[in-house]
């Protein structure tokens, strides 16, 4: 049953790891603007689609 020491150690390490990642993400400003990224992520695909159907020759220029 001493395995529980190891399990505990792992669980605490994982938890603390996630916690550190959280702190870093807040520090980098990820929580400052919670709206714009949700819109931004929808852009890219459409642009490429539009470029590839209308003007396939400019595709490389834009990428």
């Amino acid at each position, binding site marked *: 049953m001493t395995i529980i020491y190891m399990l*505990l150690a792992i669980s605490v390490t994982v938890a603390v790891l996630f916690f550190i990642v959280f702190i870093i993400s807040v*520090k980098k400003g990820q929580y400052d603007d919670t709206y714009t990224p949700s819109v931004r992520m929808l852009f890219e695909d459409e642009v490429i689609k539009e470029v590839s159907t209308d*003007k396939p020759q400019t595709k490389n220029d834009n990428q």
Partner: protein
Amino acid sequence: MAQCYHCGDPCDDKEIKHKDKSFCCQGCATVFDILHESDLSYYYDLESTPGISPGEVDGKFDFLDNESIAEKLLEFHDGDIKIVSFLIPSIHCSSCIWVLENLQKLNAGVRTSQVDFPKKTVRITYASEEVSLKELVTLLARLGYEPYISLENADQKKKQVNRTLIYQLGIAGFAFGNVMFLSFPEYFQVEEFWLDRFKHLFRWLMFAYSVPVVFYSAKDYFISAYKGLRSKILNIDVPIALGILVLFLRSTLEIVMDWGTGFFDSLTGLVFFLLVGKFFQQKTYSYLSFERDYKSYFPIAITRIKEDHSEEQVPIYEVLPGDRLLVRNKELLPVDAILLKGDALIDYSFVTGEAVPVHKDSGDKLFAGGRQEGGIIEVQAMKGVEQSYLTQLWSNEVFSTNKQHLFQSLTDRISKNFTIGVLSLAFLATLFWLVVDPSKAFQVFTAVLIVACPCAIALASPFTLGNLLRIFGKQQLYLKESYIIEQMAQVDTVVFDKTGTITTHQKSKIIYEGIPLTEEESAVLTSSLRASNHPLSRALYDLLNKNNITTLDSFEEVTGKGILATHKNRQLKIGAASFVEAQKESLEETNETSVYVSSNDGYKGRYVFQNTYRKGLMEVFQELGKDKKLVILSGDNDGERERLQMILPKHAVMLFEQKPDDKLQYIKNLQKSGKKVMMVGDGLNDAGALAQSDVGIVISENVNVFSPACDGILDASRFQNLTDFFQISKKGMKIIKWSFVLSLIYNLIGLSFAVSGNLSPVVAAILMPLSSISIVVFTTVATYFIGKKLAKKETL
């Protein structure tokens, strides 16, 4: 009618057909061309008619050529690479985000650009070798995304974003989850070999998790409680801080002495829930600023005329008394000055409340804050920016006091009695047990303090008011902070400004009094009005029939007086009463704004401009008048007194020609006589009154443009809902009171456990979150119904 492909406005009579699309103006068509040529037509695919019609750009941003001004706007620069952030009020949809983040396709000098939609800002990194700041701003303005640059930008210091609450919440949540997990085995108190072996380890781990929660996440409660005690106020944070402290100390003692498992789960849960409530209450309108003073209204720079008659752009703070300044059409006068040259027609509506622009002759004194309407004028500065008539208002102490500190909320009032009650109960129970069974006395004492921790009471108000804040926001009343709702419920006097507040900015109503004009006369009239730049001419022209434009034989505009126009042998005089020289008896000088007309020296009649009052004004006045005192405090003259009298309830007070400082004093006097005052205003001249009043609400036709510092911004289209907001705030108070009753019931149950010495960790761990959650559910459901009722009323 065709809709503009770019901005969506109706195209009226001047529709422009361009590439099979309709545009309302040349500006919109140009933006379309720019975007089309740069392969950015996707802009129009994302949303239909996303554009904004661009305004005039020429010469507007010349001041950015001045290096020292441009420097002030920069956020960062390292050699060639510079970063600048702009506030762009016209950002409103995903197309806007997309085009502003693809600026590099329009100008190769732009490296990257990033939009913050909630704040309506764009942060641009660019190479200054390839594109100058002025070119960048001009590009944005040409696209219809004109950055808002004001004096405030020059003053801004590096703003440190405060993320403490997110950290505190994160830590509390993290610890709460882990502690719950670790304390679970002991909830069932089974005698088990392995559990016995590991429980000490588990307990110390819980202790380790709790330490940062108590000393970091909950530190604000200790600070606030300490501050409250120091100023002899028992605020709600006192029992909370006491509860947290006792929880922590007793739990630590329990695991040290090996008495039991402690209450770490309740402790971390309590702090977590409290912080969630705090987070919920935070202001949500990051794009609105409630702290603005004249600095965000005034420009950053102005044209100065040097001794050798050359022009230069100087920052406003560098303007000295005696400097000669050049003010162009639509520019703002930043300092008190004397007019030297030019046709000055100053719009003071935002500064004094006068509805109609006033004409000034050279040698006249002009006040800072006025906006020039017409040609270029030359003025001589009399004072620096901060000593001007208007800006001095901000030296009043009312602008430096924090209103919230003075306000005692319902929660604060209850918590005082609550704290006293709990403490005396704790001592009584301890005394009882000291007699009956001294070994239990300590346990009971701490248990009472723990279980009575008013978590639920502390949550009732943040959640109710936080929800109401969002409901108000949906109805376009944007409040600065949630405690304002509580103050709104107590308001018994409502003071209104006139110009721009109860009247609309646009759409003046015009009534014609006199002999009807012949067809020829009205043709000459409209034709000459068309050629004039005077605001009254333009307003009148907009409202007249425009089908019969003729070519005039002669046209002369006498500055500040009127227009003299001839067509064939018909001569028309249009303008001020003295200019038109009509019969004396019909021309009593009234305070009403009017344009007189005479034809071939015979007086015909006059057009009277009337303020248009906001929709539903009468209903609002009647409804509010039932239980509140109403006051009209106007900076304008009393020309509208009679019309207002008809709309207002009998007991209402009307005061005219009030200076900004008079308004402030008037509010102060009302408050001294024990009134709770709400000020409803719109301009800089109301700023003092707004700051002094208990609740200062600004009416705004466009919430994104400047409004003076206030407690809330109400969209002008929702003016008629003002009474609803009062009612809802009162209902909100009722919800909070009921929540108090509910949480007291929970507290009584908990106390019965505590006093009898039976508070086990598992009971605490169930009871405390349960009470918090049921309060949250109750307030959310109750406010949801209020919001729904209001939305339903809206659709009717």
